[in-house]
């Protein structure tokens, strides 16, 4: 399910592969990502049950949500990225641009870089 992992497996010779580095993914987040992938690869759940499970999976603290976003992007798991982005989309529904910026405490990138 992860294109990053798939590419790593396909490019590294089989007899040389002992581990795949995912340095940008924290261990507790990787655990959740693996849980997601296992659930979606399992044939045991119906589509409706899987959708319900996804809703519960994405119902986490926003810091975890952002970590999942970064991890899904880094590991190139598009369906997980869509799921967590869908959750973020729910959070910003009905908000103005200013309210969204305030919600995520976004300072415009150029301003942030100048300050630091």
């Amino acid at each position: 399910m992860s294109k990053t992992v798939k590419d790593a497996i396909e490019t590294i010779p089989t007899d040389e592969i002992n581990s795949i580095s995912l340095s940008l993914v924290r261990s507790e987040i990787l655990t959740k990502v693996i849980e997601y992938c296992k659930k979606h690869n399992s044939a045991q759940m119906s589509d409706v049950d899987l959708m319900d499970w996804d809703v519960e999976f994405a119902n986490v603290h926003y810091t975890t949500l952002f970590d999942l976003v970064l991890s899904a992007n880094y590991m190139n798991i598009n369906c997980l990225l869509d799921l967590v982005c869908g959750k973020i989309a729910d959070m910003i529904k009905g908000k103005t641009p200013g309210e969204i910026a305030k919600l995520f405490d976004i300072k415009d990138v150029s301003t942030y870089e100048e300050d630091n």
Partner: protein
Amino acid sequence: MSSSSSSSSSSSSPLSSLQQPSSSITPSNVVDIPGPSNTNNDDEFEAPSSSRQRAMNEVWLEPVVEALATQVAIDASHYHGRLSAASALAIIFQVCSTWREVSRSDLLWQRLTRRIWRRTYRLRDTWQLEYIYWHRTARNFTTGRHALVVPQYDPGDHHQALICRCLTLSDTHLACGFVDGTVRLFNLNTGAHITTFWSNHGHLFGPFSQSISGIVITNSSLVFARLDGDIYMSLINGPRPIPGPIPARRAIIGDVVNNGVLVEFAGCNRFWIGLFAGHAGGAFQIWDAQTEQRIFVGGSLTDPESVQGWHMLTELVEPVGRVRVTEREFVVACTTSRLVCFNLRNPEILLRDMGSTTGFMVSSLDISHEVFVVVERNGVGTVRRVGNFERVSRFRLRGSWLRGLLVCMNLGYVITYSSGSGLLRVWDIHEPTARLCITIAVRDDGGEQGHVHGNSMVANQTHVAISSNDSSIHLLDFSVQ
């Protein structure tokens, strides 16, 4: 080409802001208010530390913002209609410069055009322009902004006495089937006549037995059928060694005596389907479009209409049934008393078989993007998903609107035409209760000769075409000019 528009309720769109990022939002305008922000989850959004500030800024990588923008647009489209996706995107692009940059991603616009407007190929210079085109065209259906295109017959064509009974639209062509077994192809944008296909085989089983009962345009070919059961095929852009009408190749030889009347013909890339009336147990015939072999005969849908079916050969009467095919190869067909649904790959099994206490109006059945519409004789129109028959929307037509009723649909709208009054209405079917957007008077040659008595109507995402028993064909162009 003349232009006309009708008065209607209109909605403004901030879509223009999608062409150039808004210059009114600058970094200095984004107010940084420390502390909890105005959100439903106040306990989850305490003021972040500086390390968290950096981490949150790192989240908004271009692929992430693209994915977020996509979800926001799809959500808006799902809950508030496709036109609302643009304003939702405009909000995203105004949050900060990083989010604004994503508006330049053609990959984003490609994804959005596919998901929201169901368009998989690009005709404009960029996918952003493609998205804007389909957005504005869809908006024209709600405002009534359109142009009238008059099909330009070949000067030597003696079509004045011919009645067009059948219409089909593709992205580039309008195909018109006439009672004499000919099909005329017109350029959809200019109305220019391209070619005429004719069929001249078979015995006459009545003055209308060669009348065209269905046309299918797929990729480069045009397939049409007649009431007598003949099915013809021709290439749209094939070689033309001799100027003038083109004799189409007869792919299937009809057998009226044993099969009955081919009331309606429809198809997709893979299959053709004919709805027959006249012989019990043979309502449907299905052919493999590639091998032209018949693969199924059966069905009882038109058994009660056998006698009426035979009348179609000798009298100019309304079809006793209608059949439509979806892209995913589902068939929806109806008569006045029954409506059925099945899959072309498994036609023996009816997925749905429903009746109506008041009866269905055969001329009201149409399909678009796995959704179908049908109106009952009490004026209640229902839009349902083909797969599970889940009701999507509902509308009610007044009694006077049902006279000479024609109905068709495209992505997001149902179009009704009342021949009795000459009024065309567009219904937004996004909500459970459909919203009447506009009412347009379809005038014959400037509005002084009375309204158009339609006998067939068809629509796609840019055009609506109506043919009438007075030999006229009206083509309304809602696309962005």
